[in-house]
């Protein structure tokens, strides 16, 4: 570690103003602060500088995503060999998934960080760390067989149109990872929905054993085949077809625990989102005009990407509400909209993505009214005390 620090210090002058690699200052800066906690101190005024800067925050989110990633890798292999009707060991399944997953992660990070560095150089500001999490989230919310060039295009779209045009990290209106997914969903629906895309190899004509269906439980439910839903235990554990990281509620809960324990993800949003989803599920249960609406409300929460979206996407500190009261309202509405779109709109098999994107738009409005209400309440209080 010391040797590394020494090395960084040695090459540092080259990247400062007047050094020979001055043009790459922001690139160097990014790597330096990635390796070490920045040593910047404030020079005037009394400010508290938290060593937990944006990079550390992002790393915690990445760590909390690791259980979902590891499980996702294993599940890729498990589903693939299940389709083939072969019995393999845990490690074989995991290795198969790892090999499938690696290019997706590499492309996601390569393209995204490439664009981030390019923009940082062009505009002469520091490289923003925001993509560390986005680049990790994107591979987890796509089907395993997604062609890599489509993924690269979607990542580029999300970073440029979803983030950089608004001014970079912290300025974006929409969650960039979900922007990438929405782009893929609308641009290449054949690779993002249906029965063929969720299990590795099916789209390329893999010969499966009889009776194997690659459909996600959500698709089965939408088709009204409620009796074919896997058991709740399977859904909690996550041994079902689906986007890579979204299947295991257990792994996601582990991540949620890390996020809440470190205080980085807002438990208010998670809690209110789940209760919103539950409430909408109960309302649908009341009407229950088709089999889909009869699914027990709590089971809805295990289906599809609901848990993943609510824990990792809805809590995005940039695009969610900032005020504490706003977080309750925001999360609650995300939950309601997710189940509403999922069940009542047959064109969109999963409503979580659209619900979160929709509420991203409304988050500033919610904040505005919360702040206004607060001002009004306080004004009223002062008036009373004067009299």
């Amino acid at each position, binding site marked *: 570690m010391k040797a590394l620090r020494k090395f960084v210090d040695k090459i540092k002058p080259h990247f400062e103003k007047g050094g020979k690699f001055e043009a790459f200052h922001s690139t160097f800066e990014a790597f330096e602060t990635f390796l070490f906690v920045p040593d910047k101190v404030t020079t005037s005024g009394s400010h508290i500088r938290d060593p937990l800067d944006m990079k550390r925050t992002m790393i915690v989110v990445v760590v909390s995503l690791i259980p979902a990633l590891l499980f996702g890798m294993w599940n890729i292999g498990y589903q693939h060999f299940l389709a083939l009707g072969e019995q393999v060991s845990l490690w074989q399944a995991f290795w198969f998934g790892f090999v499938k997953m690696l290019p997706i992660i590499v492309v996601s990070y390569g393209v995204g960080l490439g664009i981030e560095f390019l923009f940082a150089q062009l505009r002469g500001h520091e490289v923003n760390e925001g993509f560390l999490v986005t680049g990790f989230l994107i591979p987890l919310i796509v089907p395993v067989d997604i*062609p890599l*060039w*489509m993924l690269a295009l979607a990542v580029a779209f999300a970073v440029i149109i979803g983030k950089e*045009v608004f001014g970079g990290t912290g300025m974006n209106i929409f969650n960039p990872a979900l922007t990438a997914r929405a*782009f893929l969903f*609308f*641009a*290449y*629906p*054949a690779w993002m929905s249906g029965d063929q895309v969720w299990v590795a190899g099916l789209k390329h004509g893999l010969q499966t054993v009889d009776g194997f269906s690659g459909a996600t439980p959500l698709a089965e439910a939408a088709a009204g085949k409620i009796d074919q839903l896997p058991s709740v235990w399977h859904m909690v554990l996550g041994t079902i077809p689906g986007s890579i990281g979204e299947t295991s509620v257990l792994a996601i809960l582990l991540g949620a625990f890390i996020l809440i324990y470190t205080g980085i993800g807002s438990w208010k949003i998670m809690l209110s989102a789940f209760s919103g989803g539950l409430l909408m599920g109960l309302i649908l249960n009341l009407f229950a005009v088709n089999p889909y609406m009869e699914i027990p409300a709590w089971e809805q929460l295990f289906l599809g990407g609901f848990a993943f979206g609510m824990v990792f996407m809805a809590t995005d500190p940039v695009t969610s509400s900032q005020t504490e009261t706003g977080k309750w309202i925001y999360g609650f509405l995300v939950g309601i909209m997710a189940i509403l779109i999922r069940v009542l709109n047959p064109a969109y098999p999963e409503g979580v993505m659209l619900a979160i994107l929709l509420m991203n738009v409304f988050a500033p409005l919610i904040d505005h009214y919360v702040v206004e209400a607060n001002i009004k309440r306080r004004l009223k209080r002062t008036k009373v005390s004067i009299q």
Partner: protein
Amino acid sequence: MARDSEPLFSSKNLKLLTDPLNNENPITVQVLGICSALAITVKLKPAIVMTLSVMVVLAVSNVVISALRKSIPPRIRIIVQLVVIATMVILVDQFLKAFAYDVSKQLSVFVGLIITNCIIMGRLEAFAMANKPWPSFLDGIGNASGYGIILIIVAFFRELLGSGTLLGYPVLEKTGLYNIGYENNGLMILPPMALITIGIIIWVQRAKNRSLIEE
């Protein structure tokens, strides 16, 4: 009509033609006529036909209003302008129905909606009511080209990337891109992508032409 003392294509008159292409572009700078730009740019052909239709309507209405400008009572000028525009639009619509029925069907209501295109009313009010017929004619052609050039750029990318064709000719199929796994981008066909494409054009234009950036 009194003879102009200046030459027909003086630099002032040429500016009327070229300004709307860049600095005064009706779509990217004045942000007028957006609705039709979003609606009819899925394919290149309707976009070209729409451009020509707007050009005819705008140029002729500009000339007519400019010729009448001294005898139009100010209080009813909007009604007079609308009558002229509506007459021209009906003529264009009938012409398209007679000679280019397929395109006319693709454009559907949007030919009729040229009447409500803000660019046309805007030019009549802002320019034709105060200028001679010849400059008004040039202004009409210029603004319609400024509108059309954006329409055609957007339609070019949307048709190429969304359907893989240009003017109905399967360009991408001939290049063999599909054999190596390329697929058409379904998002390009949806209206939001027209908005994003126009946004990108505005971005590129302002990056090149710094004077357009508002504070």
